[in-house]
C-alpha cells in the first residue's frame, strides 16, 4: 500500500490534510480528509454572559465572522424570548447581504476562477488570482478589489468593526442607519448588482462556453449523489438570514422542513478518531458510512444544495439565473460538485439584489432598533446560512443569562463527510495505474474540495491564490519514494 500525504492543504479554521492510500498498482484504495485542529469554543463560551457571545464567536472564523455573529445574535434573542424590531431585522439582513457579496466575490475570483479562467492544468505559477488578472486584464482585477472593498465598507459602517462586527444586541441592533449612509449603500448595491451580472457573464463566456470545461463539470469525477440542505423562506425560496431548514433527498423530494429549535431531531454528529472535526449526518436515516445514494445519511450544505433544496430565488435576476442553471444541467436536483461555482454566482446576484432592495426600504432608517427585554433568559437556537453551509448555534443560560452550555454545528462541518467522499471520487477517477501523478492531476483532485468553498479555503480571499501542496509517496514501511510539490 502506498500512502500519499497532502499536507498541508490549508485550513478549516486553520489547517487541513489529505491522506491517499494506493494499492501497489497505483489505484486509489481510500482517501482520508483530516482536520488537525480544534479550539473548543463550545467549552470556553461557558461562563460568559450571553450578550457577549455574538462578539466572541466571530473569532471562530475571520472569513465569515458575520455568520457566527448572526447565528449567535439570533440565539441570544431567543434566550431572552424577544423578537427584534422589524427595522433591526432589516438592518441585520442588509449587513448580511453585504457579507455574502464580499465572500462570494472573493471565492469566485481568487479561488474558483484560476481553475477555469487560467485552466485546471495550467502551470502552477499562473494558476492564481494574478494569473486570472493577466488573462482578463488589470481593469477587471481592480474592479474585483473595489467591489469587495465596498462590501467591507458597508459591514464596517453597520458593524463598527469591519471584520469582527458588534452589530447585534439581544432584541435588535446597536446602531441605526442614517439617511445619507443609506443613500450611499444604495449606490454601492447598484454597483454590486451590475458586477454580479458581469461575473455571471464571465462564467458563461469562459466556463460554459468552453466545451472541455463543461465536460469536466458534467462528466468529470466530480459527482456525488447526496441529500441537500438549505434555509428557505415561507415560499420555499432561498434565504440566508431566516426561515426553516429544508432537506431534499437525492431525487429532489422534500424529506424534512424544520425550525431551528428542532435541529437535534434531524441532525446528529459522529466522531472519528482520525479527525478533530466531527461528521454531521441526517439523524432519521442514520450514519451508513461514507457512501452516497438515496439510502445514505450524508448531506451537503452549500450554494448548490441551497438551490436544490429551495423552489426558487426571491429576487428577479437571481430567479432567471436559477431557472437557466437547472434547465442547462438537466433539472433538479443537480449532483455535479463543480456546479457549486455556478450556484454561488446565482447567490451572489441574489445577495446583491437583496442588498439593494433593503437599502431602498424606507423602514431601514427607522430609529426603532431594539425590543425591550423583559423575560428571564433560558435557552436559544439561532440558524443562518453561512456562505459555507447551514450554521447552528445553541446556548443554554442560567437565570442571569450566563452561558452554562453551548453547542455549535458550523458551516463547513456539515460538509466534512461529503468533502471526504468527493476527494475520494476525484482521486479514484484521476489517479490510476499507469497515470503519472503530476501537479495538474493534484490540482484536479483539489478542485473537488475547492468547490465547497470550505473554511480551510480562506485562500479564497487572498492574493495570489494557489494551495500549498506536497505529496509524499511512501512504500508500506513508510520510506519516502518520491515527493511531488508545487
Amino acid at each position: 500500500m502506498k500512502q500519499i500525504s497532502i499536507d498541508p492543504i490549508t485550513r478549516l479554521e486553520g489547517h487541513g490534510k489529505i491522506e491517499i492510500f494506493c494499492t501497489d498498482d497505483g489505484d486509489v484504495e481510500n482517501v482520508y480528509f483530516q482536520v488537525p485542529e480544534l479550539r473548543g469554543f463550545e467549552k470556553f463560551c461557558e461562563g460568559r454572559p450571553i450578550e457577549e457571545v455574538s462578539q466572541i464567536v466571530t473569532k471562530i472564523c475571520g472569513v465569515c465572522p458575520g455568520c457566527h455573529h448572526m447565528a449567535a445574535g439570533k440565539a441570544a434573542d431567543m434566550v431572552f424570548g424577544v423578537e427584534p424590531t422589524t427595522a433591526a431585522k432589516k438592518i441585520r439582513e442588509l449587513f448580511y447581504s453585504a457579507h455574502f457579496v464580499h465572500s462570494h466575490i472573493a471565492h469566485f475570483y481568487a479561488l474558483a476562477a484560476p481553475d477555469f479562467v487560467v485552466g485546471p492544468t495550467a502551470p502552477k505559477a499562473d494558476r492564481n488570482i494574478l494569473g486570472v488578472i493577466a488573462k482578463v486584464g488589470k481593469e477587471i482585477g481592480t474592479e474585483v478589489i473595489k467591489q469587495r472593498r465596498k462590501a467591507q465598507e458597508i459591514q464596517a459602517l453597520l458593524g463598527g468593526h469591519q471584520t469582527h462586527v458588534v452589530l447585534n444586541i439581544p432584541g435588535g441592533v446597536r446602531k441605526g442607519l442614517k439617511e445619507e449612509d443609506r443613500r450611499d449603500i444604495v449606490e454601492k448595491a447598484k454597483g454590486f448588482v451590475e458586477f454580479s451580472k458581469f461575473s455571471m457573464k464571465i462564467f458563461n463566456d469562459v466556463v460554459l462556453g468552453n466545451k472541455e470545461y463543461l465536460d469536466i463539470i458534467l462528466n468529470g469525477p466530480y459527482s456525488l449523489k447526496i441529500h441537500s440542505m438549505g434555509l428557505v423562506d415561507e415560499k420555499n425560496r432561498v434565504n440566508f438570514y431566516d426561515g426553516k431548514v429544508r432537506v431534499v433527498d437525492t431525487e429532489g423530494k422534500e424529506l424534512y422542513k424544520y425550525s431551528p429549535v428542532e435541529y437535534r431531531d434531524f441532525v446528529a454528529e459522529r466522531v472519528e478518531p482520525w479527525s478533530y472535526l466531527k461528521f454531521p449526518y441526517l439523524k432519521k436515516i442514520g450514519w451508513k458510512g461514507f457512501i452516497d445514494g438515496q439510502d445514505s445519511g450524508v448531506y451537503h450544505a452549500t450554494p448548490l444544495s441551497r438551490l436544490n433544496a429551495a423552489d426558487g430565488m426571491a429576487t428577479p435576476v437571481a430567479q432567471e439565473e436559477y431557472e437557466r442553471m437547472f434547465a442547462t444541467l438537466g433539472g433538479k436536483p443537480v449532483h455535479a460538485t463543480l456546479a457549486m461555482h455556478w450556484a454561488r454566482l446565482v447567490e451572489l446576484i441574489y445577495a446583491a439584489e437583496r442588498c439593494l432592495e433593503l437599502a431602498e426600504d424606507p423602514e431601514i432608517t427607522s430609529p426603532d432598533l431594539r425590543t425591550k427585554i423583559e423575560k428571564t433568559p433560558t435557552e436559544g437556537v439561532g440558524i443562518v446560512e453561512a456562505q459555507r453551509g447551514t450554521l447552528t448555534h445553541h446556548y443554554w443560560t442560567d437565570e442571569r443569562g450566563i452561558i452554562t452550555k453551548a453547542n455549535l454545528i458550523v458551516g463547513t462541518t456539515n460538509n466534512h463527510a461529503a468533502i471526504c467522499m468527493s476527494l475520494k471520487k476525484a482521486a479514484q477517477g484521476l489517479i490510476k495505474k499507469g497515470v503519472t501523478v503530476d501537479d495538474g492531476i493534484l490540482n484536479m483532485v483539489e478542485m473537488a474540495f475547492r468547490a465547497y468553498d470550505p473554511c480551510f479555503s480562506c485562500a479564497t480571499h487572498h492574493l495570489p491564490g494557489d494551495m500549498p501542496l506536497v505529496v509524499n509517496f511512501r512504500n508500506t514501511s513508510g520510506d519516502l519514494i518520491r515527493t511531488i510539490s508545487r
Partner: protein
Amino acid sequence: MGKDKAKLKMAIYWGAACGGCCVSVLDIHETLFTVIEHADLVFWPIALDTKYSDVEEMPDQSIDITLFNGAVRNSENEHMARVLRQKSRLLIAYGSCAHMGGIPGLANFSNKEAIFRRVYEESESTVNPDKIRPLEEVMVAEGTLHLPHFYNDVMTLDQVVDVDYYLPGCPPQSERLVEVFLAVVNGTELPPKGSVVGASSLVQCDECKRKKSEKKDIKRFYRPWEVVDDGETCLNEQGILCLGPATRGGCGVRCVVGNAPCRGCYGPLDDISDFGGKMMSVIASMLEGKEEAEIEEAIETVVDPAGTFYRYSLPGSKLRRKQL
C-alpha cells in the same frame, strides 16, 4: 519605484487563529499592489504553494519579515513557530492571539480533558456511545494516520520563541500594517526590540469621541441590554463596562464607534502590567467617595469579571490560566 532595490522577503503564517488576521492583510485593498511591488511573499499557506519542507530548507534569517498570527494551541503550531523564528530576521507577533493568546486563549479557563469531553461526548447533537476521541496516531484499514498533539494550555507566541515586535489587534487595523510595512521598506529606524508597533501610546479613551465628564458617579454596572445607550456619553459613565481606560489605542475605537464597549483586543498600555488590576482601580475611581459596602455592591454588578478583563489576554497575563 523599488525596481532597483532588492525586494523584501515576507512570510505570513497562522497558528490557532480565525483567519481574520489574513483577511486584514487583504483589507489593505488597492494597496496590495504596492506591497507586491516591494515584497515577495515567500510563504503564505493560505495563498501560496510553499510547503513546510520548503521553509525548512530556506537559509536561516533569509526571510526579512514574518507575520505570525494565531496562538500556539498544538504541536504543529509550536513546530512552525520554531522553524519561522530560525528563518526570519524579524518575527512579528501579528494580532491578539499571537500577542496575548486572544479569544482561543479563553480555553485556559478550561483544559484539554474538559474540552474533549464537551465536544466529543457531551455535545447535545453528538452520538458517540463508544466515546471515541481523536487520537494522535490511529490505525485504519489501509495504514496509519496522525494528528498533532493538542496541548492542555494555549500559549502566546513569545512563550514559545523570541519575538521582535508585537502588532496588536483582533485583527490589526489594515492601515497600521501598511504603516509598519512601509517603515521597514523605507529603512526607518525601528523601535527597540520587544516594542508594540502599529498602535498608539495612549489609551482608547484618548481617541474616543464620546463625552466624558469629571464627575464619576456611577452606582452600579449594567448589562448592555438592560439600558439604552445614548450613543454620546462615555459608556463607563453610563454604567456599561468598557475596557477603554486600560486598552492601548490604535484601532480607531472601532467597537465604541459601533456602540459596543471595548474589550481590550489591542492589549494593555505599556505601563499597565495587568488588565484586571488596572480595571479594578478604574472602577474604584468611578466609585470615589462611596462607602465600602456600596463599592462592594457596585463591583458585584460586574458579571464575568475574569472573562471580561482577560477577554483577549488570559494566556499572556499574570494568571496565564485558571487553576483547575
